[in-house]
């Protein structure tokens, strides 16, 4: 019987993951990571990893008869997730903090600690699947298309894959809830966590103002311009904008306007109409591979934001970064977001962060 460490957030998915592992006869050890200081958040915060998340995870572990430990990873989380989040917005990009957290903070740290605890494998409640084969392990999308979380895990070291178990990846969310109800787990009907856990209010601008110098360019007023350079207004800091955003741009235009681009050096926010938002050439940096890297000419499926369908694409260049040409132009391709590449059987090849996007017509 092998000893498995399961990351328990206090949500229903990881609760059921732990229960399934117990059923399968593993010696299961529950761990909740304390990621940031909760004193400033409301007592009944909805986010998964708040203090009540820790208590719920402990209650579930007690009910399952497994040990449960809390590990304080606040220092790593602040450095790798929050600082990076702030720095990305400061540079005019739109970060995915959940990618950093899930790919790195969670699994790398769990594996290290797991080794000290004598655990051979690490499990979580993510909706993804992992296939262990003699030629190597692969990460695949979860079976429930509405819940698939593979988008958040592309950045983990490939060497972790053989150690991972994702018991709920084969299930739908409704099956997970049904199982939790059958076991009378207290987390069975807990609502989904949606917002970024360290921005419970949903207003990330407050966090930026707290962590950046008040004179940081990202928080200073700047011009709103059209592609042709025509100044059409003023904004109160480009950190409040993301590509594709409509909110926060004052009216007075004959047609709806959207953010097309953020230029941190000039503090310009470039706006245009909806048609201008479509792009089909994407540069991706910070690459990480969970399978053999593609080569020029390979066809892949690229997912460019969390809740978007993957779009067929061709790799046209690859070195430290790569260029993709998309089969169809995509709306609002945002620098900073993750681009995750899949093969035709829903296997995660790897991914990177979007550096820039353009249209073939202009290349």
């Amino acid at each position, binding site marked *: 019987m092998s000893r498995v460490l399961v990351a328990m957030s206090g949500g229903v998915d990881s609760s059921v993951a732990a229960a399934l592992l117990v059923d399968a006869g593993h010696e299961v050890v529950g761990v909740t990571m304390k990621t940031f200081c909760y004193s400033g958040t409301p007592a009944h915060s909805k986010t998964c990893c708040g203090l009540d998340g820790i208590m719920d995870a402990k209650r579930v572990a007690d009910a399952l008869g497994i*040990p449960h430990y809390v*590990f304080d990873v606040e220092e790593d989380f602040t450095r790798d997730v929050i600082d990076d989040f702030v720095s990305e917005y400061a540079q005019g990009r739109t970060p995915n903090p959940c990618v950093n957290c899930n790919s790195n903070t969670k699994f790398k*740290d769990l594996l290290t600690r797991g080794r*000290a605890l004598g655990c051979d494998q690490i499990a979580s409640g993510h909706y993804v699947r992992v296939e262990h084969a003699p030629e190597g392990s692969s990460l695949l999308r979860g079976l429930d298309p509405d819940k698939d979380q593979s988008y958040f895990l592309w950045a983990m070291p490939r060497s972790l894959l053989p150690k991972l178990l994702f018991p709920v990846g084969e299930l739908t969310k409704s099956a997970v809830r049904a199982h939790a109800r059958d076991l009378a787990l207290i987390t069975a009907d807990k609502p989904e966590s949606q917002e970024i856990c360290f921005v419970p209010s949903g207003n990330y601008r407050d966090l930026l103002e707290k962590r950046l110098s008040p004179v940081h360019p990202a928080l200073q007023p700047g011009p709103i311009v059209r592609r042709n350079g025509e100044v059409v207004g003023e904004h109160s800091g480009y950190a409040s904008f993301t590509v594709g955003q409509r909110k926060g741009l004052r009216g007075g235009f004959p047609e709806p306007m959207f953010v097309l681009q953020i230029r941190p050096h000039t503090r310009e926010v470039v706006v245009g109409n909806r048609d201008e938002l479509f792009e089909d050439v994407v540069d991706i940096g910070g690459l990480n591979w969970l399978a053999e890297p593609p080569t020029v000419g390979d066809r892949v499926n690229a997912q460019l934001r969390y809740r978007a369908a993957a779009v067929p694409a061709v790799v046209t260049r690859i070195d430290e970064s790569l260029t993709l040409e998309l089969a169809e132009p995509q709306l609002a391709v945002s620098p900073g977001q993750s681009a995750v590449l899949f093969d035709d059987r829903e296997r995660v090849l790897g991914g990177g962060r979007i550096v820039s996007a353009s249209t073939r017509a202009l290349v």
Partner: protein
Amino acid sequence: MQPVYLDYAATTPMRSEVRQAMDPYLSDTFGNPSSRHRWGRKASAALEHARAVAAEALGAQPREIFFTRGGTESDNLAVLGRCRAISLEDGLPTLAISAVEHHAVYDTARWAEERGELRLVVLAVDTEGSIDLDPLRVALNDGPTVVSVMWVNNETGLFLPVPEIATLVEELGGTLHTDAVQAIGKVPVSTKHSGIRLLSATAHKIYGPRGTGLLFVREGTDVAPLLYGGGQEGALRPGTEDVAGAVGFATALRLAVEEQAEESVRLGALRDAFEDRVLAQIEGVRINAGAARRSPSISSLGIDGADGELLLSALDLEGVATSGGSACASGSNAASHVISALFGPDDAKATVRFSFGRHSSEADVSRAVAVLADVVGRVRELEGVS
């Protein structure tokens, strides 16, 4: 393999004698001691008998023993209640506490200071158990002062010089409270020194029931209650009395005091054997307060190059039950206020407290040392990685 319990400072299993003594009061003899009828009278007689037994064990008068619902409550009642009684008469009191007090005193004192109820003075303690007495003298000379110094520190087993402080506090007209929760049964504890005016104790650390404590209040010492709504326990702790709890506590207390001398020698030998082997087999370990006079039942280790939470979790998974500094502060990497006070705020060692008790054996010691050596090795291997 059978798990090994080495966390007796957190809590203890109930002794059979205690359970037997309590049994009638959990069923047949169930009356409310305040009732005038025979059920009430029987309960009241049992309660008063328990009070007399507890008083005798502590060298006190029965009328000086007030049952509470535990050590935390006794500490709160002593510190806040005494300060409030003073402020009704003499204005703002000063509360002087040692830097290593239990949270039940330490946090209570800080909270009351923030609310403007008292002036707080925190007295430095060194690893020998010596207390900085100069600020204490200044406070005592300055005005009405309550002093709270624990007899034995719960995290390290360190003795504090309670009789010496009692003499000083008495001379200078202050009120001394001592938290004797970890001292009873481990060292001779008595209220005979007239400088000790308040003393807190609890049952579950000495094989008695959870949820029963007592506060010794020397005659002539005014303490304001924290709760209102009845005349029980001299109106100092209103609420229907827990007769079974009081009976169980009195039994446990009597036995602990009777057996203290012999049991301390046995526990001290176990602890010394444990520490000798730890030091021989594992490098980079400090016995916290090892050179000082301390409780024979507690061994607090400071371990270099290891994450404390990980160490405790790994020990647990291998079947050895211990605590960090105390059982109350889990889930945080920060050093406890006790370790910071003794070794400075930058002390980076992981603290693991082993505490021995009635059922601890040589075999437990051997097992604990072997598991600790293995686990420390594993956790240290990772320090370079993470």
